[in-house]
C-alpha cells in the first residue's frame, strides 16, 4: 500500500509551470527572425508613413503621402458613376423610337477645334452631339457583372462539392478501398489545395480564353481540394460505434456512410460548404482581375483606364454584396445546423 504524500504546510509541490525555458526560447527566436524580416519588407518605412498619416489627420502636419494618395483616390472615385452616357454614334442599329426603359436622349453642342491644314489656322465651330443617357445604366451593368461573379462562385462550389465527395471518401482512412488509393487521393487533394486560385486562373485564362469558364474551373479546383481535405477528416473523426453497428447488420460501405457517417458529419459539411461559397464569391471577384470573368474583370479594365468613378461603383457593389452574403450565410448556418 502506498500512502498519499501530503505536501508540507509551508511549501507546495513542484507543479508544472505553463512557461518553461522552451517557450521563452521560442519567443526569442521568433523575435529575432521577425526583426530580420521586418527590415527585408521595409516595415520601418511603412510605420513612418502611417505615423505621418496619423499626425496629418489630427492636424499636426500639413500633409502626408498616404493622405495625399487616399485623398486623390477618394476625390476621383466620388461621386461614383451611376449613369451611363453613350454617344449614339457608337451604338449599332440605334433606333430613337425604341429607347431602353428610363433612357432619354440628350443633345449637346460641343465646340470642336480643327486645324486647317492649308491655312494652319484653328477653326472653331459648333457640332451637335447626341447621347443616349441611361440614369442607372452603369450601376445596372455592374450589378449584372456582380451577378455573373456570384454565378461563377456558385458553379465552382457546386463542382467542388461533387468532385470532393468521392475524393474525401477514398481519402478517409476508414473508408478507403486500398492504401494506394488513399495516398493517391490525399496527394491530389494536397496538389489542388496548394494551387492559389489567382495563379491557376492566370494559366486557365491562357488555355480557355477570357471569360467565366476559366474562373469557374480555377475556383472549383482549389475548393475541391479544400473541401475534400476537410470532408475526409470529418469522416475519419466520425464516431466508429454507429458505423460498426451498421456494418454488423451486413450492410455495405455505402449504407454505412449514408446511415452512420453522414448524419454525424452533416452539420460540419454544411458549415464548410457555406464557408466555401462565401469565399468563392470574394475570390471570384479577385480572379476577374486576370480576366476570368465577372465584376473583377470590369474592375481591372476601369482601373487601367483611370476611370476611378467607375472603380468606386464597382468597389461599392462588391462591398455591399459581400456584406449581404455574409448575413445570408450566417442565417443559413443557424437554420441548417
Amino acid at each position: 500500500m502506498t500512502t498519499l504524500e501530503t505536501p508540507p504546510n509551508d511549501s507546495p509541490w513542484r507543479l508544472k509551470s505553463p512557461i518553461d525555458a522552451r517557450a521563452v526560447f521560442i519567443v526569442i527566436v521568433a523575435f529575432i527572425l521577425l526583426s530580420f524580416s521586418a527590415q527585408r519588407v521595409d516595415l520601418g518605412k511603412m510605420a513612418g508613413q502611417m505615423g505621418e498619416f496619423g499626425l496629418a489627420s489630427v492636424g499636426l502636419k500639413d500633409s502626408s503621402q498616404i493622405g495625399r494618395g487616399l485623398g486623390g483616390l477618394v476625390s476621383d472615385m466620388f461621386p461614383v458613376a451611376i449613369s451611363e452616357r453613350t454617344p449614339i454614334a457608337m451604338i449599332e442599329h440605334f433606333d430613337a423610337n425604341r429607347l431602353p426603359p428610363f433612357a432619354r436622349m440628350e443633345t449637346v453642342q460641343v465646340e470642336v477645334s480643327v486645324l486647317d491644314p492649308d491655312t494652319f489656322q484653328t477653326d472653331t465651330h459648333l457640332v451637335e452631339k447626341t447621347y443616349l443617357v441611361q440614369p442607372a445604366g452603369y450601376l445596372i451593368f455592374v450589378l449584372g457583372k456582380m451577378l455573373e461573379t456570384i454565378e461563377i462562385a456558385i458553379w465552382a462550389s457546386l463542382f467542388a462539392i461533387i468532385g470532393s465527395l468521392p475524393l474525401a471518401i477514398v481519402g478517409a482512412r476508414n473508408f478507403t478501398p486500398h492504401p494506394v488509393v488513399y495516398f493517391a487521393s490525399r496527394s491530389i487533394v494536397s496538389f489542388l489545395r496548394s494551387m492559389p486560385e489567382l495563379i491557376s486562373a492566370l494559366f486557365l485564362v491562357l488555355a480557355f480564353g477570357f471569360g467565366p469558364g476559366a474562373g469557374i474551373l480555377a475556383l472549383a479546383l482549389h475548393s475541391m481540394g479544400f473541401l475534400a481535405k476537410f470532408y475526409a477528416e470529418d469522416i475519419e473523426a466520425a464516431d466508429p460505434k454507429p458505423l460498426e453497428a451498421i456494418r454488423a447488420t451486413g450492410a455495405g460501405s455505402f449504407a454505412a456512410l449514408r446511415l452512420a457517417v453522414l448524419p454525424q458529419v452533416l452539420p460540419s459539411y454544411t458549415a464548410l460548404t457555406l464557408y466555401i461559397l462565401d469565399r468563392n464569391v470574394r475570390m471570384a471577384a479577385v480572379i476577374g482581375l486576370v480576366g476570368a470573368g465577372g465584376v473583377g474583370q470590369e474592375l481591372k479594365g476601369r482601373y487601367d483606364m483611370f476611370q476611378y468613378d467607375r472603380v468606386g461603383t464597382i468597389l461599392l457593389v462588391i462591398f455591399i454584396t459581400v456584406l449581404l452574403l455574409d448575413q445570408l450565410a450566417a442565417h443559413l448556418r443557424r437554420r441548417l445546423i
Partner: protein
Amino acid sequence: MTIVRSSADIENCQARPVTALAFHAVSQSFTSGTRALDNVSLDIGAESFTVLLGPSGSGKTTLLRSAAGLNTPDTGEIRVAGESITGRNLKAARRRMGMVHQDFGLSERLTTAQNVMAGAASCIGWVRVLFQAYPRAVRLKACQLLARVGLDEVQANRRAGTLSGGQRQRVGIARALINDPLVILADEPVASLDPATAHEIMALLREAAGERGAAVLCSLHQIDLARRFADRIIGLNHGQIVFDGPPADLTPGALAIIFDGPETRLRPIVAVA
C-alpha cells in the same frame, strides 16, 4: 439450405437456417501481445440464452466482435448456421445476426424509427438507402418492433440522441431484431442502466428473442442477472473457457474459477450471494 447472397430481396434475408453459432478453435492475439482468445470452441444451440461471464479483459467483447466479423481471429473458424463467416459469406452471415451494443451504436441524429430500419439497409437497394425510403414491409416491421420494445409513435419520430439510456437500448434491441436474426449478440447490453431498467431490458431481450426463435449470446457483469435469465453460462478467463453449464451449476467455487486471475482483486461482491 439456402445461401443468402447480396440480393436485395427481403425474403432471402428472412430465410430460416437450421443451426446457430459455432466457434471452432478460435484464437486471437493483439499486437499488444494480449492473447484475447485462446483456442475457444463453443456451440450455441438455436433458441437458447447463453450468458458470457468473465473478469474485465477476459475476451468477452473480442469473442462477440469476432462472431460479428468486426475482428478477424488469427486462427479457427466461426460458423453461422453452418456457414463459415469468412470472405464473401460475411455479409450474408451478418444478416442472420443481430447485435446489441453496449454503447447502443445508434446514429444520434437519425430518428428512432430510422435507426431501427437502418438495420434492414443490407436488404434494400442503394437508392432507397440514400433517401431512407424503406419499403412498406420494413416500415411496418420497425413499428411493430418498436411497439414490442415499449416505444410509441412520438418516440419513434424523435432523434435517437434525445432518448434516455434505457430507451436507446430498446431501440438497439429492435434494430437487432429487424432482420429476424438466428443469433443475437449482445455485449453488456445493460452496462450503463440502473438495476430496475437493466432487469426490464434483459427480460425484453429474452422474451423478444424467444418469440422469434433467436439464440442469444450475451456478455454480462451482473451475476444475479446471469443466474436469472441464462439457460447456459459460459465462464471466460484469459481468453479460455473455464466454465460451461446451467445457472444451477454456478456455485461459489465455479465463480472463483471464472473470476480468478491477477486482474480480479476486486472480485464482485455478489459472487458470494
